[in-house]
């Protein structure tokens, strides 16, 4: 049933968020450290265990893949609710700081990719 897939996804996200917040507490900060990442690892592990792999019917998978397909529209909605006017009204200093940080970060991608080794490229 579709709800099995949706429920599994929800379960992963809730457990991941709890772990992320606990991890933050352990580090002494009031933030969710990697909750989404932990949820994703959990989902990958559960989806790849023999327990689910052979049992998960296409319709159950549909409960998960529907949300992947909704990813872009959700991101468009997310863009539509950003505080863009706040970013623009921040003035030149905020603009310079933000944009230079982005440029510098972009320029480090090829450097670190090289460090990772060439065998990873598809």
């Amino acid at each position, binding site marked *: 049933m579709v709800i099995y897939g949706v429920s599994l*996804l929800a379960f992963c996200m809730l457990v991941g*968020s709890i772990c992320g917040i606990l*991890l*933050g507490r352990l580090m*002494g*900060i*009031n*933030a*969710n*450290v*990697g909750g*989404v990442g932990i*949820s*994703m*690892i959990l*989902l*990958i592990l559960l*989806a790849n265990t023999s327990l689910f792999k052979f049992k998960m019917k296409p319709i159950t998978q549909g409960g998960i*893949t529907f*949300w*992947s397909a909704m*990813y*872009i*529209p959700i*991101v*468009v*909605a*997310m*863009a*539509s*609710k*950003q*505080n*863009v*006017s*706040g*970013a623009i009204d*921040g003035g030149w*200093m*905020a*603009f310079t*700081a*933000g*944009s*230079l*940080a*982005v440029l*510098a*970060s*972009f*320029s*480090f*991608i*090829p450097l*670190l*990719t090289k460090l*990772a080794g060439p065998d*990873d*490229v*598809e």
Partner: protein
Amino acid sequence: MLNDVITAVLIKNDLVTAFAFIGLLVFISYRFSDWLTRGRIHGSALAITLGLVLAYFGGKYTGGSNGLADIPIFAGIGIMGGAMLRDFAIVSTAFGADLSSLKKAGYVGAISIIIGVILSFTIGGIVAVLFGYSDPISIATIGAGAATYIVGPVTGTALGASTEVIALSVAAGLVKSVLVMVGTPLIAKTVGLNNPTSAMIYGGLMGTTSGVAGGLAATDPKLVPYGAMTATFYTGIGCLLAPSLLFMIVSLIFG
């Protein structure tokens, strides 16, 4: 009378209104992508940019901080594009992710988070100094804002920065998030952002979850789980490093 009824129905069913509206927005963007640019600028990139433009006017019109979602009939966009459903959709993309690619790039991905936080913090701090700030608290807060718009206020509050400086740090983080969304598809080819490894490095360096989610959606949705995986650790690491170790270094230089 008809207007009243329509408005009332749209407001009452706000999330459903958002589904209808965002669908229309995506449809128009994909058509424009085909007609005007013959697909050279991807439809999702156009849709995200259009969303940001609408968010700007929404914010100007209402004076609020939630873009279009502050207009009552578009309130559902706040739910649809809010952190809960955004994270739910991000996690779902992991269903198609390849575990061995994640493992292979895990270590360089982790390094990229630390480098990303320090890099953005340093650049934000240097810009603050160039614009005339000389006290370590303000410099560190603005530097933290250049990491993400959450790290900025967390750091500023912890250090006791002025509200004006905290507001600036949030603005710097917002600029970063918007530029990552718009800029990623334009620069992806140049920096080699086309495989799981570079996507993990990208997520770790950029760190802004919204920026990375939008940027990869507009570039190649297949890369989303890899970029999101590292980006989701960034804000936490930033909140850990900026008010402590990084602030200490700033105090040593400017104290």
